[in-house]
């Protein structure tokens, strides 16, 4: 693969980090991170300041439907605002990660308000102790109704949540028995929501009548909890839900499973999850690194990721551009690059819909297994959607982010005319130090030469640079993170 930018620099490594922990980088973000250096950037990622997104009061004043977040266009676009405007994108990347692993869907729970609350919970607990996260997940009203734990009674268990916490959320198939599933379900009896009969009826009827939805509240019903003796993963006792989570968290299979998910999301595309019981991880050394960090740091997810990001495995050339961007990464990354959503706009609905068309409905994963990722993201139709969205979004020279790119190029070339090679290199660098293959590079150069002289200080030059940016975000390589 040829290089259009100086791949070997620390800045390239930082750009790689920002692609994985965020949605790529604007020129300003990369410049600031460059001043901090790789380690300094890592410190900041794990100790972020204020997210300072577009204020919620402004959003709710202009989008009346964002007040109750009831339907998918409202709740999805409410999150989209935060994704695009946050100053701490790593928090959102973590929220997206857990949203994918603990896949909960508005298609069943109906009201988006509780889905947004679940995302808030992921943001708050997503980098902390896995034990605490599992407790919060088990108490999460959206999860409770998604997996029917409101129907899990001490005299009549419903195994749904007890099964999925083992199979899909924490351990993976092959690490527990059917008896463990039943015992796990017994431990979570009584974990329900307040006013369950009315709330579940309204969910089933899917109507805002009479006064809109009432957001759900976790409730522990002690009278419905089975406090009898249970045998779970080889241990026996009068286990509660918290006890079961303790046993899950100390089991070696758990960090193995979570580490593989983390690798898939943050390092390189793995096999689809259903194949994991039959195929080992692509990079066992990376998995072990994170497993060790998990046990050495009280089950900390943040410690697992920090160990990964500090490793040579993550930094290696083979991990650069080794993941296919999810639709959310394409949409959000391009909008952030363009500098959109400084103010509430109906365009937020279009962006959220574009994500759907590419195959990822925010708050609406296709199944309890979440999105598979990797090659599964790409089809002829989704590829067209990706290219059209990115090209349209970046194709407005009046947008703040596009103007900033043009302005930087003008500053670098005060004499006026920019040579094609320099212009392509500048643009690839300014969209997050993208690297492209020889064929793509030659195509970009040919395009610039065809356009004639480019003086970035002129309107004509800005237009030509914008066209080049459109072409760059339409490349195959732009789909990679």
């Amino acid at each position, binding site marked *: 693969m040829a290089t259009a930018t100086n791949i070997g620099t620390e800045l390239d490594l930082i750009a790689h980090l920002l692609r994985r922990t965020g949605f790529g980088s604007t020129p300003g973000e990369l410049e600031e991170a460059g001043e901090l250096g790789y380690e300094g950037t890592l410190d900041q990622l794990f100790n972020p300041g204020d997210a300072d997104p577009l204020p919620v*009061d402004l959003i*709710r*004043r*202009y*989008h*009346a*439907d*964002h*007040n*109750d977040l009831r*339907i*998918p*266009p*409202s709740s999805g*676009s409410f999150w989209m605002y935060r994704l695009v405007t946050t100053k701490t994108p790593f928090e959102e990347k973590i929220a997206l990660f857990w949203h994918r692993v603990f896949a909960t869907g508005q298609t069943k729970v109906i009201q988006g*308000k509780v889905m947004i*609350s679940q995302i808030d919970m992921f943001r708050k607990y997503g980098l902390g102790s896995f034990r605490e996260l599992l407790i919060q997940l088990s108490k999460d009203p959206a999860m409770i109704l998604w997996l029917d734990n409101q129907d899990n009674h001490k005299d009549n268990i419903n195994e749904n949540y007890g099964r999925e916490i083992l199979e899909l959320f924490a351990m993976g198939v092959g690490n527990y028995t059917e008896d463990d599933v039943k015992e796990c379900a017994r431990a979570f009896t009584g974990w329900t929501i*307040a*006013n369950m*009969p*009315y709330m*579940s*009826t*309204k969910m*089933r*009827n899917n*109507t*805002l*009548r*009479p*006064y*809109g939805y*009432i*957001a*759900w*509240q*976790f*409730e522990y019903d002690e009278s419905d909890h089975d406090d009898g003796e249970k045998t779970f993963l080889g241990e026996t006792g009068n286990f509660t839900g918290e006890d079961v989570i303790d046993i899950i968290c100390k089991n070696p299979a758990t960090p193995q499973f979570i580490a593989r998910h983390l690798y898939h999301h943050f390092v390189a595309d793995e096999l689809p999850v259903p194949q994991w019981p039959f195929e080992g991880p692509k990079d066992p050394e990376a998995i072990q690194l994170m497993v060790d960090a998990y046990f050495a740091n009280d089950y900390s997810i943040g410690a697992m990721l920090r160990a990964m990001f500090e490793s040579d495995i993550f930094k290696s050339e083979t991990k650069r551009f080794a993941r296919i961007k999810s639709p959310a990464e394409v949409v959000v990354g391009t909008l952030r690059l363009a500098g959109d959503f400084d103010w509430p706009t*109906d365009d937020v*609905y279009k962006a959220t819909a574009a994500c759907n068309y590419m195959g990822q409905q925010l708050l609406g994963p296709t199944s309890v297994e979440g999105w598979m990722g990797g090659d599964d993201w790409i089809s002829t139709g989704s590829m067209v959607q990706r290219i059209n969205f990115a090209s349209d979004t970046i194709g407005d020279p009046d947008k703040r982010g596009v103007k900033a790119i043009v302005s930087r190029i003008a500053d670098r070339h005060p004499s006026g005319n920019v040579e094609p090679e320099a212009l392509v290199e500048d643009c690839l660098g300014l969209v997050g130090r993208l690297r492209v293959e020889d064929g793509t590079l030659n195509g970009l150069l040919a395009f610039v030469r065809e356009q004639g002289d480019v003086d970035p200080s002129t309107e004509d030059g800005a237009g030509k640079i914008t066209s080049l940016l459109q072409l760059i975000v339409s490349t195959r390589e732009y789909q990679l993170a």
Partner: protein
Amino acid sequence: MTTEIRKQRQLKYIDTNGFGAAQGGRGYHFPVDFAVRKDGLIFVLSRSGQGSLAGTGISVTDIDHNWHGEFSGYGTGDGEMQWGTAIAIDSSDRLFLADEKMQRITIFDSENNYVSHWGTAGSGPNEFDGPSGLAFDANGNLLVVDHKNHRIQRYTVDGEYIDSFGSEGSAKGQFNYPWGITTASDGRIYVADWRNDRIQRFEEDGVFIDAHGESGDGDGQFNRPSSVAVDDDGFIYVADWQNQRVQVFDKDWNFQTIVLGEAGLSPWAADYINANKDEKIAREVFNPYPKLDVDEPYEVSARTEPYFWVPVAVTTYGDDRLLVLETARHRFQIFEIV
């Protein structure tokens, strides 16, 4: 009716009017403003939202829950709206509608027929950038809160520009995205200075009198006040939008009381519940005030059906009623002023 000047104000809940109607019909969908006509009819502006724009329009009801139909709707044509923000009714029973997206004021006659509209986008005199609150001054001229221009503009009822006051800022007489506006019986103008978390009071010619409020959730503090009403005795009622409550003050800004709402089922809501047996049975064991593990007002209101959820507008009705409109619950609660 009493002629005695009451020294203190409390609010006693008495009734709820409303019903979620995403596709139009009897009820409201994300209502943002309302106005009372002198014959007692109550006009409610539903802004609606993405995904169910059929709920956009102006509904007509009365204090006894009678439904008098609806008019206008989503669109860009004459008499339609996109992002409706406010309504006000003049002495001739003509209804004025502000639309902050199309930057225009639309007039309907007393039979709810479209009459005309005016408005041009911009920041110069007689131009709008987000018309939101509407009220009539003591002379019958229309006051328009031109919120992104951080000012109040004044027009004749025929749309002829008269004057304006205010500018962007937090000093006396300046605004930060103002929203609701009302005129008291003494002619003074009250403006909900939304992002400055205060209410400002002006003489009828726009000369600043005073301001009250600061950011916070204590008594007398505000979190984005969106609307203000004043009764004939000068008591002031504020929709404390992001604190999910209504606060009451006397004319000297002495704090009187706070209400959080305590809605019950309106007759329209009761009709629905009674017609849906599964919901009726489930509701029989429904506790409207569950024990919560959150304390942020928005979250508390989201989980507590009787409480105000996004109380966006307040208005007096007669001399002893206060109505509180809630965007996220598609209803208004009725309080007796005692």
